[in-house]
C-alpha cells in the first residue's frame, strides 16, 4: 500500500472540569460540547474515508471520567470501522487503576503503553510507535528505547509532551525537534499543547491542539488534522489539512471605558463591542479597563447583558478617574505618590514589553496600577470604594 490516510487528534479531555467560572448548567453544556467535538472527529473519519484514527494523549480526564462515559466511548468507538490508536497523556496516564487498564476497549482500539509501545498494521503498511504518560508528571523521556523505523513502511511516532519549549519548572516530557528528528520517523503525531501547531523546526511534526477549546487561553479555531501520507520515488510525501471540530470559540477582549459618564454609556459600548459575536457560539470575557468617575458593578452589567449569552463575563478592571498628568505636577503628597507609582509602573511596563507573556510581570504591573488607584482614592476621599464582590 502506497498511501495511508488518517485523522490525528489529541487533548480531547472528555469529562474535564470546566474552569471558566460559569453559572448554572454552563459546565455541563461545555462537557457536552467536548463530546460533540469528539463525535465530529468520528464523523470526519467516516466522511473522509480515513483508514486510521490517532489520539495523541489526554483523551479523557482520569480523575473525573465516569463509567457512563466509558460505556458511551465503547459504543462510539466500536461503531468505527477503522483502527484507533491511543497513547495515554498526563491527564489520562497509564496508572494502575487507569480506565485503559480496567476497562474493556473495543477490538479496533489499541492503547500503546510502555509494555506494548508499537503496532504494525500490515494492511495499511504502517508502523506506529507511541510514547505516552504512565504517571501524572514525567520528565524528559528516554528516546533510546524507541524502536527504529521499519523499512518500506509508513512510520508514525505518537508523542504526548513538550516540544521545543523551555519550561524548566513545569515541563511535561520535554524534548527537542533535534531529539525527535534523530528517530527518523515519517510523521510525528504530537499532543499536549492545546493550541494547534504545525510550524516546528522538526519537519512533519504536528500538534492538532484541543478539538474543543477549554479556556480563554485557547482562543481561535480548534480542530484536528487530516493527514495523507504517500510514497513517491522512495520518499514519503505528507499532506496535512486542518478540520474544524469545535462547537465554541473563546474571546478575551478589553474594552476601555474611559470617558463614560454613566453605566448606560458603558452598556452601550459593551453592546457595540459584542456586535458580530454569536451568543450561542462565542464564549466572551470582557475586561473593562480605563478610568471612570463612577462605580461599575460587574454583576449589574453581567445581569443586564449576559442573559442571551451562553457565557459572557465582564471583569471590571477600571480604575478611579484621576488626572494623572495633572497629579504628576502636583506638589502635594498625592502628586509625589503619583510620581513614585508612575516610576514603578513605567519600570514594570518596560520589563513587560521584554516578556509580554510573563504572568508575574503582568500581575506586578496590575498590582502597581491598582496601588496607584487605591492610593489616590485614599488621598482624595479618605476611603476606598470597594467593588461589591470583595
Amino acid at each position: 500500500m502506497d498511501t495511508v490516510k488518517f485523522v490525528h487528534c489529541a487533548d480531547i479531555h472528555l469529562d474535564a472540569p470546566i474552569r471558566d467560572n460559569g453559572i448554572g448548567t454552563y459546565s455541563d453544556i461545555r462537557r457536552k460540547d467536548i463530546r460533540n467535538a469528539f463525535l465530529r472527529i468520528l464523523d470526519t473519519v467516516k466522511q473522509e474515508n480515513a483508514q486510521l484514527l490517532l489520539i495523541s494523549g489526554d483523551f479523557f480526564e482520569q480523575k473525573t471520567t465516569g463509567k457512563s462515559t466509558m460505556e458511551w466511548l465503547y459504543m462510539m468507538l466500536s461503531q468505527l470501522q477503522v483502527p484507533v490508536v491511543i497513547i495515554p497523556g498526563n491527564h489520562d496516564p497509564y496508572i494502575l487503576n487507569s480506565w485503559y487498564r480496567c476497562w474493556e476497549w473495543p477490538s479496533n482500539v489499541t492503547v500503546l503503553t510502555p509494555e506494548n509501545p508499537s503496532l504494525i498494521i500490515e494492511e495499511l503498511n504502517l508502523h506506529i510507535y507511541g510514547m505516552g504518560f504512565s504517571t501524572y508528571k514525567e520528565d524528559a523521556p528516554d528516546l533510546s528505547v524507541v524502536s527504529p523505523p521499519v523499512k518500506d513502511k509508513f512510520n508514525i511516532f505518537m508523542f504526548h509532551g513538550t516540544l521545543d519549549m523551555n519550561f524548566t519548572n513545569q515541563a511535561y516530557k520535554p524534548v527537542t525537534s533535534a531529539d525527535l528528528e534523530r528517530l527518523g520517523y515519517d510523521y510525528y503525531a504530537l499532543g499536549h499543547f492545546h493550541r494547534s501547531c504545525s510550524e516546528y523546526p522538526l519537519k512533519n511534526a504536528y500538534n492538532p491542539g484541543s478539538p474543543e477549546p477549554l479556556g480563554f487561553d485557547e482562543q481561535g479555531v480548534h480542530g484536528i488534522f487530516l493527514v495523507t501520507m504517500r510514497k513517491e520515488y522512495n520518499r514519503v510525501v505528507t499532506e496535512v489539512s486542518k478540520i474544524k471540530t469545535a462547537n465554541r470559540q473563546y474571546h478575551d477582549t478589553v474594552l476601555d471605558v474611559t470617558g463614560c459618564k454613566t453605566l448606560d454609556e458603558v452598556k452601550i459600548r459593551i453592546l457595540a463591542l459584542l456586535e458580530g459575536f454569536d451568543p450561542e457560539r462565542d464564549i466572551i470575557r470582557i475586561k473593562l479597563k480605563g478610568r471612570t468617575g463612577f462605580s461599575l458593578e460587574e454583576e449589574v452589567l453581567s445581569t443586564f447583558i449576559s442573559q442571551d449569552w451562553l457565557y459572557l463575563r465582564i471583569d471590571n478592571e477600571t480604575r478611579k478617574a484621576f488626572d494623572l498628568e495633572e497629579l504628576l505636577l502636583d506638589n502635594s503628597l498625592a502628586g509625589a505618590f503619583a510620581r513614585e507609582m508612575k516610576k514603578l509602573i513605567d519600570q514594570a511596563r518596560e520589563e513587560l514589553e521584554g516578556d509580554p507573556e510573563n504572568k508575574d510581570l503582568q500581575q506586578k504591573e496590575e498590582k502597581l496600577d491598582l496601588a496607584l488607584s487605591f492610593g489616590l482614592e485614599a488621598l482624595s476621599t479618605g476611603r476606598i470604594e470597594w467593588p461589591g464582590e470583595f
Partner: protein
Amino acid sequence: MKITLLDIKGFGRFNQKKIAPKYGFNIVYESNESGKSTLQAFIRAMLFGLKGGRKSKDGKLPPLKQYKPWGNDQYAGIMEYTLDNGKSYRVGRNFEKGTVNIYDQGANNLTSEFPHERDRGPKFAYEHLGIDAEVFDRSAFIGQLQTIIDAEGKKGLIERLSNLGTTGNEDMSLDSTINALESTLLEKVGTKNSTTRPLDRLNNRISALIQEKEELEAQREKYMDTISQLHMDKEALAKFESDLAFFKAQRKSTEKRELLALQRESEGLLNKLNELDEGIKQCHQELINLKEYENYNQEELIEISGMLEEVKQIQDSLLTKQTELREVKEKCEEITDTLDPDELFEKKTTDVTEAIKEYNESKQEGASSYSSAGTGAGRQKPKRDWRPFLISAGLISAILLTVQFFQSQDPLSLGIAIVAAVFSITIILRKKNKDLVGSGTMTEADRLKDILLKSGFTDMINYIHYRESQIKGREKKENYSHQIKNLEEEIEQLIKRKDAILRSWDKFASHHYLNNDSHKEKLIESIKQGVEAIKRANEKKQRLLLAKDTIYEKFQIVLKEASLMAGESFEAVDDLSRYIMGFDNQNGTDSPQVSMSQIDEEMKALEERINETKLRIASLEARAENAPDQSRIYSVIEELDSLIEKKSKLELRGEALALASQTIKSVATSMQKDYIPKLNSQMSKMMEKLSDKKYTKVMTNDELVINVVSPETEELISVNSLSGGTIDQIYLSMRLAAVTLLEKGRESIPLFLDEPFSQYDENRITKAFELLKDISKERQIFFFTCRQREYDLALEVFGQDLNRISLQ
C-alpha cells in the same frame, strides 16, 4: 491669572450682574445671604463647569441644579481673565445647554483647541492654571475657618495644619489616608492576624474544598480500584467459564462415550436375558417331556439300582466262588495224591526218629571229652567257612603292600603287609587243627545212616526232605478242605441274597407298573436317566432363572448408572438410545480419554471458583454502583478554581493596598523632608508679618507636630500650647504658603478668602491685611466679609487700592 470681568447672565440669585474685579485686592463686603458664596461658585463654575447628576444621598441638589437661576431663562455667564503672561481670554458658558466657548483677546474661538471633558467641556482652566477643579478648590479657596478658640476648634485647626503639611490638602490627613488603606486591607481583604475577613473566609472555604476534594479523590481512587478489581475478576470469570465450557464439552463427550458403552452393555445384557429366557423355555419343555419320570423317588431308584448292581455282583461272586471251589477241590485232590498214607508216613518217620534219638543220646555221652563245639555240630546248622577268603585276602594284601613298599619306600606299607601275612598264616594253622578234632565221631553217623537206608532214605537230608514235604502236604490239604467249606457257605449266602433282591425288584416293578419282562438294568437305567434328566432340567432352569435375575439386576444397574450420568430416568434401553441420539454430533468421542470423575472434580473446582468470583463480582458491582458523586467532584473543582482565582485577585488587591499604604508613607516621609522646610520658610515669613515679628519661625517636625519659636526664650513651643487666635494666624500663613508652593513655576491663582478673620482682634486683622496687601501685589485676592470693622480696617490698609465689589 487675574479675573477682569464677571458677567453673570443668570446664576443662582444673580441675574444680569456684571462685576469688574481689579488685579489686586477686591473686597466683597455684604451682609449674609447676599450672594457671596454664589459668586465664588460662579467663578468656580466658569472655570471648571458644574457637576450635574442626581440628588446626593443627603438630598442635596447637584451644583448644576442648585445654581439654576431663579425666574430667569438664562443660565449662563461670561468671564474674562488675563494670565501672568499677559494673554487675555473670554469664556462664555451656557450652563443650561452645557456649552462653553473660549476666545482669545483677538476674539478667536479657541474652544476646540482644548481637550474636552464629556460633562464639563474644554479643559481650558486646567490648561491655563495647571490644576484641576479639586486642586483649585483646595488651594484658592480659604473658607470660613473654625477659629472658635476652644479645645475642639484648636484640635481641628491643628489637624488641618497637619494635613496641609503632610498631604498638601488640609481636608485630607496622612493618617486618614493610611487608615483608609489599612482598614480597607483589613476589612475588605484580610491580614495575617485577621480571622474573619474576606480573604480568611476565602481561605477557609478553599481549605474546606481542598479537603473535600481530597476526600472525593480518595473515594474515587477507591472506586477506580473497585473498577480495576471488577475488571480483573470479570476476566478471570470469563476464563473460568471458558474452562468450564471446555470441561462440559469434554464431559458431554465422555458422557456420550460412557453412555454408549453402557448402552452396548445393556444391549448385551438384554441379549443374554433373551438367551436365558429361551433356555428356561427349553427347560420347561424338557420337563414336560420328562413328566413320566417325575414320580420316581431318587433314593428309591438308587436303592433299586444298587440292588440290581448287587445282584449282578452276587452273580459274579457266585461264578467266582464256584470256580474257586472247583479249583480248590482239584488242588486238594492233587495234594492228596502226593501224600503217603498216614500209616506209612507214621512208620517211616517213627523209625528214623528213634534212630536219631539214639544217635543223639550216644552223642551226648561222647561230648564230655570233647568240646561242646564238636558235639553241637550234628544239631546245629553248619556255619559258613570264611577262612579261605580271609587267607586269600590277607595274602594278596601282603603282596600288594610289599609291592607298594618297594615303589614308595613307605614303612607303614611294609608294616601292614607283614601284619596281613601273619594273619593269613594264623588262620591256615587254626583250620588244620580243627579238621584234626572232627575225625573222632564217625561210628554214630554210620548207625544212623543205616537206619535211614532201611527206611528207604539215602541220607539224613533225604529223610528231612521227605518228612518236611509230607508235613507240608498234609497242612495244605487241611487248608484246602477248610477253604472248600467256607466257599460253599459263601455261595449259599449269595444265593439267598440274590433271591431277596429279586423279590424287592418284583415289588418295585409291580408298584410302578413296569414290564417285568424287560431287561431290569436297562429299564432302571432308562428311568434313572429320565429322573436325572428332570433333575438336570430343573437345575438348569433354576440356574437360568438365577442367571436371569442376576443379569436383570445388572441391567437395571446399568440403566440406573446411565440415568444418573445423564440426569434423566431411563426405563428401557430405547430411552437411553433416544437420549444418546440427541447428542450433538460435534461432541465426538475423540476427545482425550479423561474420566468423568476427573472432569467432575475439575468442573466442581471451577464451579466453586466461578461462584466465588461471581459473588465477588456482585459485591464489586454493588460497590461500583455507588460511584462518587461526579457532579460534586465537578462543582468542588470548579468552585475551587473560581475561589482560587478570586483569592488571587483579592490578594493582588490586598498587596496593592499594602503597597499604596507603604508607598504613601514612604513618599510622605520623603516629602516632609523636602516640602516642609519650604513650607516652614514661607510660613515663617508670613507669621513674622502677622504676629508683628513676634513669631519669626514656624517649624514642623518629622512627627508633623507644628512648633513655633518662642520670642522670649527662643525655644520651640508646640502649636497646641498657643492661643486660638495665634493658631488661626498660623493656619492662614500655612494656607497662603501652601498656595505659593503649589503654584511654584506655574500660573498664579487668585485667592478667595471667605470670612477668615472672624476671631481676630483689630491688630491682628490689620497685620493680616498688611500681609494680604503684600501678596495682592502679585496675586488677585477676593476677600469676602460681612463685618463693617474688617471693611474699615481693609480700607485703612489698602486705601485707594481697595476695590469693593458690590453684589446689590
